[in-house]
């Protein structure tokens, strides 16, 4: 496997992890614009642990994820008292603050970045990615997934049905933050180097775009979105400076033509020939 191909695949795997980090809160009707912030927490924490305590990356990375999840929990509980866009803005503020904080933290190298001694290759990263995708998929085939979808579709009705709406939103958000932390840990340990500047708001925004582009209604959406977003700019490399222009134009057009994202649950069931009672009724009306 050539170095270029491995590089692209590693990026793809990490982007898929990020996409699921953004997917979980979005599936519960909340927008996290601070994915990069949580990734940077997970990345630096796991790098610090594996550097200083000589812990294996296999342990350090989930640990970084756990720390990012805890921070997510600490933010989600107070901010989720309100609704709508406020959580998105708070996560955005948190992400930028974390980044600025780490730039001034000399113990992890400050603005110069932080070298990481341990190194992991594509197979390990792919394994982690599979784990994350599998976990989210499992989660969404349980009652939890149904509850999250209900909260997303109509908070009031979900509340009337006896679901603890806020608890589900906090849970989805916290898990998303933890997954983002894992993504950051993978990044740090593959590239042997982590710097806070890379984890900017632009990264957070593009991650959210993966999910909204791929579709927020099914677990396959983020996978597809992250794949298209990682590979399309690579394929458009031929046209150098115009590639992001073409890319943005494609995005705008797709949003006009297919605002619900590329794949939806109903569509997949239709393709597989599995029609639920609900779909049939919907078609009858």
């Amino acid at each position: 496997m050539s170095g270029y191909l491995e590089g692209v695949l590693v990026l793809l795997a990490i982007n898929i992890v990020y996409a699921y980090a953004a997917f979980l809160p979005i599936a519960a009707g909340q927008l996290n614009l601070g994915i990069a912030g949580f990734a940077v927490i997970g990345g630096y924490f796991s790098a610090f642990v594996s550097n200083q305590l000589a812990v294996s990356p296999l342990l350090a990375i989930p640990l970084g994820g756990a720390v990012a999840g805890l921070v997510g929990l600490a933010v989600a509980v107070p901010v989720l008292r309100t609704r709508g866009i406020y959580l998105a803005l708070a996560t955005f503020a948190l992400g930028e603050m974390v980044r600025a904080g780490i730039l001034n933290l000399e113990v992890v190298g400050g603005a110069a970045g932080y070298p990481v001694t341990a190194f992991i290759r594509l197979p390990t990263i792919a394994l982690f990615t599979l784990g994350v995708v599998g976990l989210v998929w499992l989660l969404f085939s349980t009652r939890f997934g149904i509850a999250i979808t209900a909260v997303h579709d109509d908070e009031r009705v979900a509340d009337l049905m006896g679901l603890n709406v806020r608890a589900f939103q906090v849970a989805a958000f916290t898990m998303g933050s933890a997954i983002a932390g894992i993504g950051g840990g993978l990044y740090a340990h593959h590239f042997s180097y982590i710097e806070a500047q890379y984890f900017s708001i632009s990264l957070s925004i593009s991650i959210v775009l993966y999910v909204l582009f791929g579709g927020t209604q099914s677990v396959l959406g983020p996978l597809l979105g992250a794949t298209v977003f990682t590979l399309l700019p690579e394929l458009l490399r031929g046209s150098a400076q115009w590639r992001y222009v073409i890319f943005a134009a494609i995005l705008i057009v797709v949003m006009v033509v297919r605002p619900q994202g590329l794949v939806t649950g109903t569509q997949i069931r239709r393709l597989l020939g599995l029609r639920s009672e609900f779909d049939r009724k919907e078609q009858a009306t």
Partner: protein
Amino acid sequence: MLGSIYAIVGVALTLSIGVLKFLNFSIPGLFMIGGMTTWVLIRHGAPWPIAALSALAVGAAASLVVERFTWRWMRTAQEFVPLVSSMAFLILFENLAVAFWGSELQSVPQLFGTSDWRIANLVISIPQLVGLLCSVAMIWGLSAFLTRTRLGRGLRTIAEDSNTALLLGVDVNRIVPLVFVISGLFAALAGVLFALNYRQVHPFMGEALGLKGISAMVVGGMGNIWGAIVGGLIIGLAEAFSIRYFGADFVDISVYGLLLLILIVRPTGLFGDARTGARA
């Protein structure tokens, strides 16, 4: 002075979120368009008032294009969709600018000589003063338009509830583009002021400023125009003070820390309306 630019960008954002419940991410792009257009025209020898006016016109026109793709054709879509499209427009505008003019930092020529005005120890630069007066006049005009005119009333009805507004005979399809034009004008104005005062433009100049504009809007309370202005000044002051007392490295920590604190303690912002908070 930077505070007043944040305030103007904040006004553009707050108008969009107050009326349309839509965080318009293309506004930082429009800010950049305002600044870059000013630079391009001045470089080609246009006098600065013409460059500034054309930049405003280009900003408003670009905002109308954004309206088509994020609002007109998307009214039935999910709430996140306009947000995505407006982010895509930001990427589009930035990279178009890179494709045409390269990604380097460009400097706008000094236009006003040494036009500083000294009162005792206070140094006031004339272009800054003129910029400040211009923006106060425009914001005052906007405020009067919203409260006094028939169109302004229609606009505020849409802000309350767009379906009811439609039922009451408000021409939503005519007023919504107007909101985009106004916010495009304000974003471009901020860009022009930035270009003329700081004499530097580049394709990605909108990002950092747009983020500060969002902070200004939230600190003041979303949907509240005067709140955005006070918020912009607070953010500007917070920056200046943290540079003075903690050093330049801590600017972002203190600005975004302030934003996070306000969101946790008083999510509707300093002057926010509790109802907007519940419905936004």
